[in-house]
């Protein structure tokens, strides 16, 4: 038998499933709240395009750094996936982020008139589509 496979199997044996499930659900709700607040912040600040996603990435990294310190630097002891599982926000939370972002952007900046000069528009267009 491959020694690595055996090692990981033995490692797997040491996890107690209910604890893992509890950890995962707690981390999930932390991530959900992170993405919601990040979305709300991005929307209220009026961030557009990649700046909003950058805020999402930043918030995800920040929250996973905090979680990592909660795990005392050893996420592998608490989650079978290790730090990848700790950082990975998951697709659902990305959608939640988009939802909150769009909602708050729509509420705060949705119906303001933004007069755009042709020059500025040109720059914007290039920025968006390059």
């Amino acid at each position: 038998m491959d020694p690595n496979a055996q090692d990981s199997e033995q490692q797997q044996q040491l996890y107690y499933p209910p604890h893992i499930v509890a950890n995962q659900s707690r981390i999930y709700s932390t991530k959900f709240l992170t993405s919601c607040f990040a979305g709300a912040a991005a929307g209220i600040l009026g961030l557009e395009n990649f700046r909003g996603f950058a805020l999402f990435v930043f918030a995800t990294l920040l929250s996973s750094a905090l979680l990592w310190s909660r795990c005392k630097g050893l996420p592998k002891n608490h989650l079978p996936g290790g730090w990848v599982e700790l950082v990975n926000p998951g697709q659902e939370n990305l959608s939640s982020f988009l939802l909150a972002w769009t909602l708050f952007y729509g509420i705060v900046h949705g119906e303001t008139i933004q007069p755009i000069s042709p020059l500025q528009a040109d720059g914007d267009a290039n920025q968006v589509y390059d």
Partner: protein
Amino acid sequence: MTADMSSSTVSLYLDPQIRDWVLFPITVVMILVGVLRHYVVLLLQTPPKKLPRAAIREQRAVLRSQVLRATAAKSPIPPHIYHAISLHLDDAFAAGKYLKDGPLKEGEAPPAAPNILSDPNAMDGMMTGMKAQMVMMVPQMVIMGWINFFFQGFVLIKLPFPLTLGFKSMLQRGIETPDMDVRWVSSLSWYFLNFFGLNGLYRLILGSDNSASQSSQEMASPFAGAMQQSQPGQPMDYHKIFSAERDNLKFSEGLYNWVGDDVETRVLRKYGKLPSATSRTS
């Protein structure tokens, strides 16, 4: 490129009434329908039927053997106990001691596996799954119809991120403007954003095993719920399972390794009382 440039110069002024009477209602209705769906599914669920004692014993015997061999490679059970349990289970499986209908008589052929569709218990489980699926599907159709009927034909909101033109036909359905930026979207797109984005909220307010969110494994197969439901009553051919279990037990005997093997040497070495040069390969 020219089309893109002209589209980004367009600035629309959206009526605040649209926000108050379309954006918020759609979100609130979707959240409430999700909660309602959760409780309807809870009401539809019938408690699993109680199994007779013999049937439970049959299942638990398989479970015991599985637990025993799952940890065999680094078993916490000392050798003499492990071998005793393993032998006992092997004998019992061979003799058919734990079978629901008792051991086979001389010259009797094992009964054929019962058909899933003819077993009323299994049908029950399947029906529950189907009902849950209906509760998932119907509100979605109704909300989509509602949105299409009342809120079609105008721009609802501006997305804060750009999309490719491929999304135009989907996100701006009912708004016949060939040049408008794809970022201005109709109410149906807001519905889809809600549809995908609210799962986390459902998990937060209803718990992780709620019926409101469509989790990926449930989406994968409409029968996933049914399978889970019917698991306890599912007819299985325990003759075959037991004989397979016997083979597995024999195989695990070979794999077996006690976790406490030469533990004293390892402990001594860990605390430096033994030179590590004499380490043996285990």
